Each structure stands twice: as C-alpha cells, then as structure tokens.
C-alpha cells in the first residue's frame, strides 16, 4: 500500500515537472480572459440594441418591466385556460423575477457566478476533454517512446500496480484541472462582472418523458449549488475521457498517434450526431453523450430514449471498458523497446 502511495507521488511530481499542469493553467487563464472580455462586449452590445429597438432604456427601466411580467404571470397562473404543464416553469420564473427585484439585480447583467457556470457548460464537450487529453495521452505511450518504461518495469513492482498508480494520478489531476478551471473562471470574470451572484436562483429539474421535455418538476436552486452540479458533471466527463485516452495511450506506442486518435474522435463526435441523427446507434457513442449539463439546464433537443441516466450509463460503460482493456493489455503485452 505504501508503495502505491509513493508511486502516485512520484507520478504527480513527474507530471508537474513535465510542465503539463503549468500549460493547462496558462491555457485556462488566457482563454477565460478572452471569453470574459468577449462576454462583456456582447453584453454592452445587447444593451445598446435593446435600447435602440424598444425605444426604452432596457437597462434602467427593468424594474417596471419585471413588475409587469410578475403581474402577467400571476394572472396566467390564475387563468383556468393556462396550460397545466407550464405552471411549474411559470412559478419558477416568478421566483427568479422576485429575487431580482428584492436584490435589485438587473437580469440582463452578468455575474461571476453565471459566467463561471456558463463557461463550464460550454467547455464540457470539447475544451475540457482536450485539456484532459493533454495530461493523459502520453502517460503510458510517453514512457514507451522515451524508453523509460523499461526502467520502471524492472523494479520490483507488479505491472498492474505501476499502471494503477498512473491511473490514480490521472484521476487526481482531473480534480485539479476542474478545480483550476473553476477558480480561474470565478476570479477572472469577477474582475469583469463583480464577484457576486452565487445565491441567485437558477431553474433546473427538467426531465424527458417519452421524448418530450417535461417541465412539471422544475425548481429553483441557488447558483452555487447549480455550479457545483455543473462542475461535478464536468469532472465525470473528465474521468470518462481521461479513461478512454488512457486506454489509447496504453494501446498505441506513439504519443502523437495517441493524441491524434482521441482528438479526432472527440471532434468527429461533435458533428456525428448532427449528420446521423436518424441512426440510433450513434447515441451509444461516448462523444454524443458528453453534454451532460444540458440535462440540468433543459436546453437539449429531446431525443427519444436519451436522458441523464442513459448518458451516464453509456459514459460509465465506456470508462469501465477502457480501464479493463488498459489493465489486461498492459499486464499481458510484451514490452520490446
């Protein structure tokens, strides 16, 4: 047990000194700064457009507008002709408006909390997996190409323990990446939009019933909790993508090939569902199931048979299969370097 612990320690130190984590850190800082700046610009333009189109200063007059909307929604709830299935979402919307009014927050405004959540919702299906690949794709193949694998294997440690230490290191670093993404996004966007917004209510609880978006169970959760759920799902995605690319790194000897394979798979996955939407089998691919946060926000296109549990099961299946393949192959293969 102690041996495994020090093996992991060794792997982590190696990772840090290979400057991989520093690269991830730098990429996050640069990209998040650019996104936050862009968001800020968009926000200004939206305000200008609204003012231009509506003829009222949408930015100053929002309290009156919100009050009006509140009254209308209350009427809608009371009306006998209102749609039963929409009641929950109307109620949720009313709670949000009321919160905005009570706390004097213009719903148009961004906040660090909103941005941090949005960032991960957008990053979860491509950007975050790419960061994880940077760490995982050469974990084993890198040792093969540089020949250091021999030095590791001649020591008195069973092969599975070597691989396990590498895998656990990867899982550990995935937490660090998700954590870094959160902290950096929260701090940088804080400078642009102010550090608040963590208590604002966010609607969630959408479900899919027989291929249709069901909003009867919608409820508000505070933004911090919503953020936590988004980042947890992001970690799950990181874990799955990490496992798969770890497997490829075990199977393929060259680092470049390993990165190429997993990256092209991911990129292809982003438009495969677009081209092959009628082809049922695509939904068992891991790439089309990565947008887990869409289930939280209810912004997905309901597809028959796809829901949160389905996606998580598929992803988990891929991860477990990858781990098994990695360990079986690594302990059985001949290493001829």
């Amino acid at each position, binding site marked *: 047990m102690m041996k495994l612990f020090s093996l992991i320690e060794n792997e982590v130190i190696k990772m840090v000194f290979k400057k991989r984590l520093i690269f991830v850190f730098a990429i996050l800082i640069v990209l998040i700064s650019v996104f936050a700046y862009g968001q800020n610009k968009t926000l200004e333009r939206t305000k200008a457009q609204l003012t231009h*189109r509506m003829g009222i200063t949408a930015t100053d007059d929002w309290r009156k507008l919100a009050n009006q909307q509140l009254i209308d929604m209350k009427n809608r709830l009371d009306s006998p002709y209102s749609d039963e299935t929409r009641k929950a979402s109307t109620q949720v919307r009313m709670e949000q408006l009321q919160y905005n009014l009570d706390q004097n927050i213009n719903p148009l405004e961004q906040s660090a909390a909103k941005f941090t959540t949005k960032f991960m919702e957008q990053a979860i299906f491509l950007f975050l997996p790419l960061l994880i690949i940077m760490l995982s794709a050469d974990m084993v193949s890198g040792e093969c190409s540089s020949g250091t694998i021999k030095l590791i294997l001649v020591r008195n440690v069973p092969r599975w323990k070597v691989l396990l230490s590498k895998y656990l290191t990867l899982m550990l670093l995935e937490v*660090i990446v998700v954590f870094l993404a959160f902290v950096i996004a929260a701090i940088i966007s804080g400078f642009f939009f102010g550090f608040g917004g963590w208590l604002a209510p966010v609607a969630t609880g959408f479900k899919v019933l027989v291929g249709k978006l069901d909003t*009867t169970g919608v409820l508000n959760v505070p933004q911090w909790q919503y953020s936590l*759920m988004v980042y947890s799902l992001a970690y799950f995605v990181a874990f799955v993508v990490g496992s798969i690319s770890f497997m490829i790194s075990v199977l393929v000897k060259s680092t470049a090939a390993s990165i190429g394979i997993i990256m092209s798979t991911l990129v292809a996955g982003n438009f495969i569902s677009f081209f092959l939407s009628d082809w049922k089998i695509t939904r068992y691919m891991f790439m089309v199931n990565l947008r887990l946060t869409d289930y939280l926000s209810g912004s997905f296109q309901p597809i028959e048979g796809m*829901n*949160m549990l389905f996606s998580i099961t598929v992803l988990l299946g891929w991860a477990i299969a990858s781990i098994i393949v990695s360990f079986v192959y690594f302990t059985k293969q001949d290493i001829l370097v």
Partner: protein
Amino acid sequence: MLKKSMWYSILTIACVGFIVLSIGFYQAIIVTTAVNPPPSAEAEVPQTSPDSTKLPSKDANSFRVLILGDSVAKGTGDEKSKGFSSYLPDYFKKNTPKDILVENAGIDGLDSIGLLEQLQSQKLAKTITDSDFILVSIGGNDIRSILTLNNLAKDDQFKVRLDSYLGNLKQTIKALRASNPNSIVIFLGLYNPYAKANGIEDTRLLNTWNYNTQLLVEEDGKAIFIPTSDLLKFNLGRYIAKDGLHPNSAGYQALSNRISKSVEMIITGS
C-alpha cells in the same frame, strides 16, 4: 521539501475536491431523474368541463362574449389586470339593459397555429356555440420575431409567415363557423408597439399584414375587422404598457370603446 509540500497540497485539494464533486454529482443525478407524480391525464377533464358549463344556457336576456387568442385578448399588460374581459361589458352596457357574460380563453404567446389547435381540440366547442360575440386577437406572435432580422431576410420571412398565418386563419374561421354560424366575429388588427421601428419598410409590412387579414376575415358576412394601428400609432406613450408591447389599461379601454361603437346597432337592435 518544496516537492513534498507541493505533493501534499495537490493531494489535499484533490481529495477534498473529489468528495465535493461526488456530492454535486449525486445531486445532479437526483435533480434530473427524481420521480415526481406525472401530471395525470384526468386532471384536465374536471378543469375544462366547468369552463364550458359555467355560463348559464342560452337565453334572451344576456349577451355572451367569448374572447379568443393571444396575450392581447387575455388582457396582458393592463396594470389593473382587467383587459377586454371587463372593459367590453362596461361599454356594451351603455347600449343595452341585458347582462353581458364574458368568457376569456386568451393564452399568452399564442400564435395562429396554437389558436387553430385550441379550436380543433373541441374543448371550447360548447362555449363557442353559445356565444353572441367572439373577439379574436391573433397574429402578433407569428410576426413579432422577424423584427430583429435585416431587411432582406425580413422580407422573405414575412412572406413565409404571412402565408402560413393566412392558412391557419382560414381554418380557424372555418372551425368557428362550424360550431356557430351566427355569432359576430370581431377581429383585432395588429399594431406596432415599437416607437423606433416605424420606418417605411416596417409600416409597409404591417399594413400588408393587416390588409390581407381584413380581406380574409371579412369574406365572412358576420365578421368585422377592427384596426388598431391607427389608434395607437401616435399614442404609444399613452396606450402601451411598461413592457413596451401590450396595451395598458387606457389602451384596452380605448380599444373596447372602438369595438363597442362598431357593433352598437347590433347590441341595441336585438
């Protein structure tokens, strides 16, 4: 030493992070899969049946008015929460001693296809049969979203929307007449609530829309098209609510007054 402390701090962050993320993951699954009682199909039946029987059966001492359509029909925007449902009877009362019974079936955000589906679902069939007047306001939600397009795309989209709208409207009137061939159908035209969008192009589109609507509506001998854009054009500040889209209380009153004038003879005469 540096290595050791770095390793331990990474390990600590990772372990704490892992536990926190696991909790979050559990919550995320619960919140998206937790089973709440599915809305029973039966819930709709008791809800709609009182609506269609709420009004006493047809008699000679009352007028029944049915209001159909979008948020304007419903009265959205009125700071007193009244809308046509309460102003129309007020104005009608000036010309007749009879009771005025109003049924408002307006739904926010309804577009022409929605109205058609509402009628085809037959939930309102009895109410329609009993009505003497049917006020319809529809179309605003069909056309509203094209305002943000550029002029070229706007023209194309406009033609598409207008065609599908007219098709739906034709079916709607047919459905209304199937239930009740005798009632007076009062159809409200569209107005432009945006002070800034009153260029030649936008005005032309609005007029094309209203003109085509009027042609179609008044093919029916017992239907009347009530224009609204002229009344609101220079009075936006006075008649449009804070949301910059719907009429306010004064706006609804002005429109109700206009409607009651248009059907004055029918009300006093019968």
